[in-house]
């Protein structure tokens, strides 16, 4: 049954349906509603998890690390500054190969302070060794949250589910919440082979010398690469159980005969899909939603780019002094094609700047014959100081 739910509430319901046993979190906008909804369910007896309201995001990540290692399914959520504060723990969780799920309510980073949406936060953590899945709407956020536990526990790797702050977390949509029995069949009780156990004592997190460290990193790399098989399979199984797929590694919409494509991550995808409907001049156009950014689905991306002459990458982050983050990876992956499309890279929607429907026709009309340097597309140059930096 579809019901109107705020994104955060829907995600909270999904976490409870996944029977997370330990939830630890620290409040930060725009993540707070998720944890408040879980706390409300705990208070009302509708959820039986241990809710640990910690004194920092650093401890939130550490609590779920300890909980998962002690044999419980664990979940946390954060955003922005909180994600950066977690940074050291995130790398540690991944290196220890702890299966965990975290929602990132994507938000810009300070300074200057901004509480609004972009994806600089999760992009800053792209090398932490977590799976990163981006959601284009709140139904995907619900379904991906539940899938994330399966992926994490299958591969013993942590999974970050990225949802655009406010745009998704604070927006009401008609959501289909899965039945509890469906979730239970899809997600068996948490079993972690390496859990701490007094009858089978094991030592974790040891000092590793140069003679073993590289091999440990290789194993971690392989586990992430294995997710390229597991993520689409889990999505197919979820689709078989519920009738809804979330887009595997990436999802395409639009015209197969198109020579132009636009690739993005997160809620902008929905805006682009609507814009493609509204603006006939923009068609034929192929839209690509890069649901999975880590591991990077290079082969799937090459298949998705077949026949394209140009691909525009829209990302909500920038690597100052370098340019595009996603753009650089997309360009590198497509360079292996015999006739790679030209890749144009732009940042849009930084710090919550609105991404309107008419951005699409303006963008396509402005594309130069050959890709120029990466730039912020929706910049208002009149606000910049003359000749300033």
């Amino acid at each position, binding site marked *: 049954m579809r019901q109107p739910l705020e994104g955060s509430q829907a995600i909270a319901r999904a976490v409870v349906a996944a029977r997370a046993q330990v939830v630890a979190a620290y409040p930060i906008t725009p993540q707070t509603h998720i944890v408040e909804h879980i706390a409300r369910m705990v208070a009302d007896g509708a959820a039986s998890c241990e809710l640990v309201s910690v*004194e920092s995001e650093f401890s939130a990540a*550490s609590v779920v690390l300890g909980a998962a290692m002690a044999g*419980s399914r664990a979940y946390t959520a954060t955003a922005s500054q909180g994600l950066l504060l977690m940074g050291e723990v995130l790398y540690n969780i991944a290196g220890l190969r702890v299966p965990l799920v975290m929602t990132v309510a994507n938000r810009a980073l300070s300074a200057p302070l901004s509480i609004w949406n972009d994806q600089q936060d999760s992009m800053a953590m792209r090398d932490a060794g977590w799976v990163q899945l981006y959601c284009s709407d709140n139904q995907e956020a619900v379904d991906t949250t539940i899938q994330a536990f399966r992926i994490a526990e299958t591969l013993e790797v942590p999974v970050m589910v990225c949802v655009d702050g406010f745009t998704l977390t604070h927006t009401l949509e008609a959501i289909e919440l899965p039945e509890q029995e469906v979730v239970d069949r899809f997600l068996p009780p948490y079993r972690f082979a390496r859990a701490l156990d007094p009858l089978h*004592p094991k030592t974790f997190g*040891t000092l590793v010398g140069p003679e073993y460290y590289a091999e440990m990193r290789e194993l971690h790399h392989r586990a992430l690469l294995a997710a390229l098989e597991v993520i689409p399979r889990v999505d197919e199984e979820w689709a078989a159980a519920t009738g809804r797929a979330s887009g595997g590694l990436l999802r395409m919409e639009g015209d197969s005969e198109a020579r132009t494509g636009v690739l993005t991550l997160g809620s902008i995808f929905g805006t682009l899909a609507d814009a493609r409907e509204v603006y006939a001049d923009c068609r034929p156009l192929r839209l690509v939603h890069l649901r999975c950014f880590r591991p990077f689905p290079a082969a799937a991306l090459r298949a998705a780019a077949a026949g394209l002459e140009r691909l525009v990458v829209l990302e909500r982050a920038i690597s100052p002094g370098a340019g595009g983050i996603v753009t650089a990876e997309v360009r590198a992956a497509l360079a292996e094609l015999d006739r790679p499309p030209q890749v144009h890279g732009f940042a849009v929607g930084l710090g919550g700047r609105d991404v309107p429907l008419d951005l699409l026709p303006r963008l396509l009309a402005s594309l130069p014959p050959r890709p120029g340097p990466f730039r912020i597309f929706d910049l208002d140059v009149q606000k910049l100081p003359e000749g300033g930096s």
Partner: protein
Amino acid sequence: MTNETVSLDNLRANQPRFSGLTSGHRACLGCGQALAARLVLEAAGPDVMIANATGCLEIFTTPWPESAWRVPWLHSLFENTGAVAAGMEAALKAQGKSTRVLAFGGDGGTFDIGFQALSGMLERGHEVLYVCFDNEAYMNTGIQRSSSTPHAAATTTSPAGRARMGKRHLKKDILSIIAAHHIPYAATASVAYPADVRKKVRRALALPGPSFLLVHSPCPLGWGHEGALSIEVARLAVETGLFPLVELERGSVVGVLPLREPKPVTEYLKLQGRFAHLFADDPRAREELAHLQALADANIERYGLRATAGGLDTESADTVRRGGGQWA
């Protein structure tokens, strides 16, 4: 016996002195921390799991692929031990298990970088015994001063020189800060008093809720004394009043190890290289010695350490007897 047929009760009964940290680790000769950790586990093991902070204890017990631990043990990071332990406890609670969670950290990981996570763990009432092995400096990185380093002690980042007499600041009164959390049990202990360490571990684990144990653990390398003198040095820290052994319940003092005749602090200081500059012919050195004596006197006064006639004291409270169980 296979693992499948062993119950934890049997295991405990068959090993009255459970050895959770076994031999073969790489601690220095005379390491107080290695001894202290062994003593804690003798009283606490084997139905425990440990969250261990980064530090000497972590490094010398677990050079991959070896481990000296016979209990489940997890090292995550330097500054999150209280939170990792809290997560373990929350998980065990969610699973309805009775396994006890121990958190181990050094003074750097406890007084300094891990302090926030520890405070949060205590405030939220997680049933964890947090043990701080206090060797009064960052020994793992090579003897840098911490907020636990005693006043006037020389370390590599608070060296004694023409313009400085070692550390300029006081040792942080961590016990009072812990006590302000009003947790069920907090205590200090010393490796010189092994039965007292065990007793306090048992007491901590007998009470519901969080507990904290600060174990004074000499570091021969960092303190500048022979490894064979570790116990003597640790005992003198107690006997001078510089490291009082006290117990607090809900923030109130409920027990102290009394001193019949407190020894002058110089007895303790003169054995250690880190205080050698205080014995130079220098008025500033004499001033610092007087300062340290005043700190010891203040401890004695504050905790009422002077033994009253007929009371137990440090001479008889913890005499080590070997070769039998009749005193156990």
